[in-house]
């Protein structure tokens, strides 16, 4: 019991900082918030879609390329973050995408996708091949709506959550590839931190923590509602 309390307190102690000062309630940086929300929604959707599709393919394929491709998609996890970013910067500069929304989205997709694929693949492994094999017998639409969605909704939520957290952690990437033209909550935090404005910085920190929590509850509620609705339709 004592050990549990100790571990829990150690995990929770840093949150004390949130209450060390009163956060400023300002909405000056609306553009940054809109950008952040837009990127979160866009990238979560793309990540869920690509990662689930790829993991599904990986589970069933008998291709001789399977092993190599498996390595290929997980390999980016082992490449140091900034090295990928520097190289991407050069590629995107060549393509004229620096300072654009597309460039930033692409950069963020590159750094989030390997994690998402891994999560999706693990999620499917936990459900297990026998159960998924049954799902394969159904036609595509019904397979997805009635079986895969309810089974994967937790994994999908985790993917969206991870994507959100990684995205909100990126300052260097957004600053370099966005060329300072795409402000997000994260880039704002850096400026507020440099500006020594404690309450502004704190309000940004609150926001950074609030976004993932919001995403978590929204998606949980949504998937619960969807599953209930689908069950209703089957009765």
């Amino acid at each position, binding site marked *: 019991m004592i050990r549990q309390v100790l571990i*829990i307190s150690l995990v929770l102690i840093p949150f004390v900082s949130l209450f060390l000062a009163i956060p400023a309630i300002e909405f000056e940086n609306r553009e940054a918030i809109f950008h952040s929300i837009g990127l979160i929604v866009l990238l979560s959707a793309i990540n869920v879609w690509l990662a689930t599709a790829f993991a599904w393919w990986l589970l069933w394929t008998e291709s001789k390329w399977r092993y190599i491709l498996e390595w290929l998609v997980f390999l980016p996890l082992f490449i140091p973050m900034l090295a990928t970013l520097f190289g991407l910067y050069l590629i995107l500069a060549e393509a004229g995408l620096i300072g654009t929304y597309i460039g930033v989205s692409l950069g963020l997709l590159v750094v989030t996708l390997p994690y998402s694929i891994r999560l999706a693949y693990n999620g499917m492994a936990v459900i297990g091949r026998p159960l998924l094999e049954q799902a394969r017998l159904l036609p595509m639409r019904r397979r997805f709506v009635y079986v895969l969605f309810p089974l994967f909704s937790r994994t999908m939520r985790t993917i969206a959550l991870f994507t959100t957290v990684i995205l909100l952690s990126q300052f260097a990437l957004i600053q370099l590839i966005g060329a300072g033209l795409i402000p997000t909550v994260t880039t704002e935090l850096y400026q507020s931190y440099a500006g020594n404005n404690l309450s502004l910085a704190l309000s940004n920190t609150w926001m950074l923590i609030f976004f993932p929590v919001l995403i978590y509850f929204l998606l949980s509620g949504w998937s619960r509602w969807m599953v209930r609705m689908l069950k209703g339709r089957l009765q």
Partner: protein
Amino acid sequence: MLRSSVALTILVSLLPLAALVFLGVESIGTDWRVLLSDETWRDSLFTTFYVVSVSTVLSLILGTWFARTVVKKGWHLTSTILKIPMFVPHIAAAYLFWLLFSGSGGIGWIEANERNYATVILTYIWKETPFVFLMMLGTYEQLNRSYVETAKTLQLSPLDQFKHGELPFLIKPLLDSTWILVAFISFAYEVPALLGVTYPKLLGVLAYERLSTGLYLEATEPYAVALVWTCLVGIGVFTTYFFTASVRRRIERGVRR
């Protein structure tokens, strides 16, 4: 539909490799002798080694130990709470630690300890332990306890029970976690830039600043450093996976779930 999604995923996954090729091309003009003898880079390298190894090793040990204990004792609440830091963005975590340890309102450690990178290391441990915990949790939940029980009845010491009944099955997830953490921590900007000192900077911070400020004429240097560091990590990844390949294959073939 599935085919095009898979193709798209492969294309996106090829980008980091293409990025490395571009890095290679861009670093062609680098004067390697100057780079290697530059003390600023060298100090950065050693500091980076130190920060990375301490954070990674401690995160691995703590994460594994937590996963093991949580599964063994069935601590559900602790398990849920341990996952929380994972969903706090890195820079938010860094800022929380800065506030906690800074002079104004916090404990006031930051001035005294800053050259030790203690806050950076603590932030990383706080953030990465839950990641390792999650990776190992799945492993421990699927672990066949009968191996440890067999080790016990074979009269092996507690250390040998762990060495033969648990560790072999942890090799793969530990290896994966180690290199994911190293790649993530070793060459990053956000956390050490917020919390670190002006000298010696961590490799990622130094490289990013030299690249973005544009004050340096040797613009190829950061690219070269990024490439060298990637190669070092790559060699580490390759050797560790290569040398454990036979034992991992053996375990996969002989294990009873």
